[in-house]
């Protein structure tokens, strides 16, 4: 516990100091992702992907698609990506890839897209460092205060499988999962104080959820088969109804299957480019300057790469169906694929291995897309589980980020800090959530930090002594 907390608290002090190789990788990767977005082959924002189909088929133009992309991404870039990067000193996909989605689509010419993307990468690696230094030198250092978010995020995130199980399979199984996870967290803290306490608990929780879902689907399929057999026995003599049903079902399935297979074919055609993309993202993860998930940046910051790999690995299960179906429906893939390249990257010992592994993972993912789409059609409970997992991830992170933001507000400004940050959060709620709920609190901390510094210069506020 103590090492985890101490590590989390000292996380941001190493700042954003990138080596030349790291800077080059970020700039080149941003150039590549912007080009890929320009070509409508992949975007990072899951919400933008559905709109790519109309763009690819020429039913909507570049500027309309850019507007959609900007509208759906802006809140996540400024509310989530930037504050997280500033407070942890670790880059994240919202800060790097959401802007390259927009810039790539914005670029009217193909050659301009990688230039804009590369420029964004350069701005991030050079500019963030300066912003970071300036912010740390202010009388009210709100970036150091933001590291208060680490503890609630790391610990509450651990519970996301329990929430998903409760929502999908009821109170009893949810309660059991909760007790099991709590016991495992306590056990881990006692026996392996250096390990991230949620690691084992999360693993068991996710396995339980997937187990419940698979069992349910299997039971359902068996029941369906028995019912069908029974129906066939009773209607066996009536030959006219027998063959009719499968025909109509096949007709119903057809538009989705043909849509899915057209998309899969389009993506397979660009396999080499996707392999380069996978290699790049995996390399970035291997350099340990990048965290793929909301909780991961804090773990990367305190150099717990195994913990980070575990957290991002479990997170993958919440996103596979979403990414697969939106990719198959739209013909545009995800910039980080199924995000398997993140955990693999964190763990690999050398950059060369990361390049090879990233390319191989993306090749497998793109080639397996159609198969995954077919499987998902047959396993409704598993798809349901992934929706519950994503819901649970955002639920637990919402509370953790809100709570952590109030802790940060207290650290930087005491009661006045809490009033400003909590007040801005409530105001956003009252105004119909102009800023995404998840990002509202950290954004409020940044605004509150600037406001407290202004008050200090006006001699209206004395910084809290730590």
């Amino acid at each position, binding site marked *: 516990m103590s090492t985890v907390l101490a590590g989390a608290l000292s996380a941001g002090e190493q700042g954003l100091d990138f080596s030349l190789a790291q800077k080059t990788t970020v700039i080149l990767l941003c150039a590549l992702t912007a080009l890929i977005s320009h070509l409508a082959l992949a975007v990072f924002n899951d919400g933008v992907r559905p709109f790519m189909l109309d763009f690819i088929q020429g039913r909507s133009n570049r500027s309309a698609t850019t507007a959609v992309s900007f509208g759906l991404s802006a809140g996540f870039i400024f509310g989530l990506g930037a504050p997280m990067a500033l407070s942890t000193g670790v880059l994240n996909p919202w800060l790097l890839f959401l802007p390259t989605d927009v810039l790539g689509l914005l670029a009217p010419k193909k050659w301009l897209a990688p230039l804009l993307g590369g420029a964004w990468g350069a701005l991030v690696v050079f500019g963030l460092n300066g912003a970071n230094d300036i912010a740390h030198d202010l009388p009210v250092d709100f970036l150091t205060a933001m590291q208060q978010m680490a503890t609630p995020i790391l610990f509450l995130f651990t519970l996301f499988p329990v929430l998903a199980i409760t929502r999908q399979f009821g109170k009893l199984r949810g309660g059991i999962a909760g007790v099991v996870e709590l016991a495992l967290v306590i056990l881990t803290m006692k026996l392996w104080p250096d390990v991230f306490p949620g690691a084992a608990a999360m693993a068991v929780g996710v396995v339980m959820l997937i187990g419940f879902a698979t069992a349910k689907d299997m039971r359902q399929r068996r029941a369906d088969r028995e019912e069908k057999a029974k129906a066939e026995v009773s209607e066996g003599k009536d030959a006219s109804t027998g063959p009719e049903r499968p025909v109509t079902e096949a007709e119903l399935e057809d538009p*989705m299957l043909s849509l899915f297979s057209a998309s899969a074919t389009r993506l397979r055609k660009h396999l080499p480019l996707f392999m380069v993309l996978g290699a790049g993202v995996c390399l970035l993860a291997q350099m340990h300057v990048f965290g793929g998930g909301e909780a991961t940046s804090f773990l990367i910051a305190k150099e717990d790469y195994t913990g980070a790999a575990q957290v991002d690995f479990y997170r993958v299960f919440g996103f596979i169906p979403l990414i697969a*179906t939106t990719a198959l429906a739209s013909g545009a893939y995800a910039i980080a694929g199924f995000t398997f390249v993140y955990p693999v990257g964190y763990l690999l010992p050398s950059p060369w291995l990361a390049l090879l592994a990233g390319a191989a993972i993306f090749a497998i993912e793109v080639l397996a897309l159609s198969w995954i789409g077919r499987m998902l059609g047959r396993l409704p409970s598993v798809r349901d589980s992934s929706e519950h997992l994503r819901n649970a991830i955002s639920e637990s992170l919402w509370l953790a980020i809100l709570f952590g933001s109030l802790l940060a507000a207290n650290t930087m400004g005491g009661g006045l800090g809490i009033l400003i940050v909590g007040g801005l959060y409530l105001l956003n709620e009252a105004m119909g959530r102009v800023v995404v709920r998840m990002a509202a609190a950290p954004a409020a901390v940044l605004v509150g930090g600037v406001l407290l510094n202004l008050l200090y210069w006006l001699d209206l506020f004395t910084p809290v002594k730590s």
Partner: protein
Amino acid sequence: MTKILTGGVGKVQVADALGDLGLGDLEVTVSSDMDAAMKLRAGQADYYLGTCHTGAGASLGVLLGVLGSGTCHTFGRGIPTDAEVTALLEDGKKVFGFGMDQISETAPVIARAIAAHTR
């Protein structure tokens, strides 16, 4: 009876929110994007309300692909007005996506407009 399917991350909450309104002539069923796409296509359901973080991705992906953009609309992160939804319904939109943190504000507006439109 107008059949509305809900899907996406907040599908249960949307169904609950609509149930609480007590609009008699609406039948609300929790569904999934794939099933809903096929049912709407086959005319077994009339409307689909999808939710996700951005209000567009998971909620609309498959439906946009199967049904085309002519019948789909996302409110993104904005809260629609009654007149806005009515205009969209008159325009033939059947599939609506919105942010999961705006369910309590957006879902009733859409449901009331649908109820008035189909009456």
